[in-house]
C-alpha cells in the first residue's frame, strides 16, 4: 500500500466540545470550499493541513510543488471578502449544505494575480475554460492557514463514502498490497471494464472512485453512476478484487496538472497505481490528448505508478476490445466507445448493443425515469 503523500495521513478533525467558538467571526463558504475543508480534514489532500498561504501558492504555480518541495499541482485556495479579518485571527467557516463547521487559523491574508493562476494552472486565460471562469469569479483576497473540522452532517451517498483511513483499513483487511485506482464520472461501458480489468490483472485490487458532485446538464446523475457500477460489480467482478467508494470534489478541468492531483488523492487512499486515460481531466481543446501522461515524467518523487491508456475501441475483426498497441487492423473495423452515442441510445429508452455496454448495466440505467442531470 502507498504511504500517504508527504509521509503522514492528515487528520484535522477535533471535538467541538473542546473549543469555545462563541466569539469567533463566522463566514459562509460555498459547497466546493466545504468539500475542500472535508478533504483536508480527512486526509484526502494530505499533506495539506489547511488552505494554501502565498508562499505555497507561488511554488505550486511556478514549480508544481509546495514550498517544502512536495509535489502539488492544484491551488487549494480560500477566497474571501471579509475586511475585518487579519493574520493571527481565527474564524469559523460554515456551510449549510454539507453541514460543515470548521475553525480557520489565519496565517496569511494575500492577493494574487488571477490571470497568472489561470495561465499557469489551466494553460489559458480564456474565460470559456470552466476552471479559468471559476478562478476569475473568486473574490479578490485569499486567506491561508490550518483548518480544524468541528462538524459535518450525514449526507446522501455516505454509504459509499470512505475516508483514506477507512480505505487503508479495507485494503489491509482484504490483503491487498498493490491497488489500482480508477476515476470516473460516468456509468461503465465495455471500454471502461476492459481498462479496469487489464490493470487489475497485474495488481491485487481495483479501487473504483467516482467523483460525485456538481455536474453539467446532460451528464449522468450521481445515483445512476453508483447504481450502474453496483450492477456491473455484482455480475462481472470478483467481490474480493474490486471495491467502490466516492470522492466528493469539484472537477477543475486542469488537464495534466489535475491528473497529478487525482493521483495524489488516490495515493492518500492507499492506492499504488492510478489509471490515466486519454485527455484526462481535459475540456475542449485546451490540452493535447496525452499531456496528462507526459506530466508524470516531471515527478520522480510521486510514488504512485501511473498506468497510461491510450484510445481503446472494439475491433470487429479481433472480436474484442483493443488499443492501438495490440490491434493490427484498419480503423474501419474499429467501433469507438462514444459516450455521446451511448447517451443517445439510452435517452431513447433503448438498450445499447452488448459490445458497447453490459445489458444489466443498461437496464439499471433505464430503471431511472430520467438518468440525466437537467
Amino acid at each position, binding site marked *: 500500500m502507498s504511504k*500517504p503523500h*508527504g509521509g503522514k495521513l492528515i487528520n484535522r478533525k477535533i471535538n467541538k466540545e473542546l473549543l469555545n467558538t462563541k466569539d469567533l467571526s463566522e463566514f459562509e463558504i460555498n459547497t466546493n470550499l466545504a468539500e475542500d475543508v472535508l478533504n483536508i480534514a480527512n486526509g484526502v489532500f494530505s499533506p495539506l493541513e489547511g488552505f494554501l498561504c502565498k508562499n505555497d501558492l507561488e511554488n505550486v504555480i511556478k514549480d508544481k510543488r509546495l514550498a517544502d518541495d512536495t509535489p502539488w499541482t492544484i491551488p487549494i485556495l480560500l477566497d474571501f471578502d471579509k475586511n475585518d479579518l487579519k493574520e493571527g485571527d481565527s474564524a469559523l467557516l460554515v456551510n449549510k449544505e454539507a453541514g460543515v463547521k470548521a475553525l480557520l487559523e489565519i496565517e496569511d491574508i494575500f492577493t494574487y494575480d488571477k490571470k497568472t493562476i489561470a495561465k499557469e494552472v489551466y494553460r489559458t486565460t480564456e474565460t470559456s475554460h470552466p476552471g479559468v471562469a471559476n478562478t476569475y469569479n473568486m473574490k479578490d483576497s485569499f486567506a491561508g492557514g490550518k483548518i480544524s473540522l468541528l462538524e459535518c452532517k450525514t449526507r446522501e451517498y455516505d454509504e459509499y463514502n470512505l475516508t483514506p483511513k477507512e480505505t487503508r483499513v479495507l485494503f489491509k483487511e482484504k490483503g491487498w498490497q498493490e491497488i489500482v485506482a480508477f476515476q470516473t464520472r460516468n456509468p461503465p461501458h465495455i471500454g471502461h471494464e476492459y481498462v479496469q480489468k487489464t490493470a487489475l490483472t497485474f495488481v491485487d485490487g481495483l479501487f473504483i472512485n467516482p467523483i460525485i458532485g456538481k455536474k453539467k446538464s446532460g451528464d449522468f446523475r450521481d445515483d445512476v453512476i453508483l447504481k450502474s457500477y453496483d450492477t456491473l460489480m455484482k455480475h462481472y467482478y470478483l467481490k474480493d478484487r474490486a471495491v467502490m467508494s466516492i470522492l466528493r470534489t469539484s472537477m477543475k478541468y486542469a488537464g495534466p496538472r489535475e491528473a497529478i492531483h487525482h493521483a495524489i488523492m488516490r495515493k492518500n487512499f492507499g492506492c499504488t497505481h492510478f489509471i490515466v486515460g486519454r485527455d484526462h481531466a481535459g475540456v475542449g481543446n485546451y490540452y493535447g490528448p496525452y499531456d496528462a501522461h507526459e506530466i508524470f515524467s516531471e515527478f*520522480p518523487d510521486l510514488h504512485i505508478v501511473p498506468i497510461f491508456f491510450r484510445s481503446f475501441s472494439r475491433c470487429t475483426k479481433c472480436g474484442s476490445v483493443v488499443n492501438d498497441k495490440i490491434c493490427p487492423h484498419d480503423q474501419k473495423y474499429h467501433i469507438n466507445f462514444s459516450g455521446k452515442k451511448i447517451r443517445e441510445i439510452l435517452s431513447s429508452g433503448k438498450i445499447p448493443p452488448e459490445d458497447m455496454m453490459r445489458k444489466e448495466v443498461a437496464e439499471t440505467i433505464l430503471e431511472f425515469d430520467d438518468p440525466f442531470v437537467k
Partner: protein
Amino acid sequence: MAKEKENKKFTTISIPTPLAEKIKKRIKGTGFTSLSSYVTYVLREVISGMDEEEEEVFSKEDEKRVKDRLRALGYID
C-alpha cells in the same frame, strides 16, 4: 528584493567536473534543460524514497471502529 528572494530558493553544490561533463553529455537531446534540472530530478527520486515518515499505525479501538463501519456497509464480511 525579488532577486534576493529568488536566491533563497536555490543553493549551489559542487560536483566533480568530469561527472558534470558526463551528465551534460547524457542530457543532450533529452527533456532536461540544464545540469541543475537533471541533478534535481535524480536527487528528488533518491531522497523521496528515504524521507517519508513511518506509516501511521491506528490504535486498536480506531481500527475496530473503522472495521465495524466497513462491515455495516458491506465492504467486508
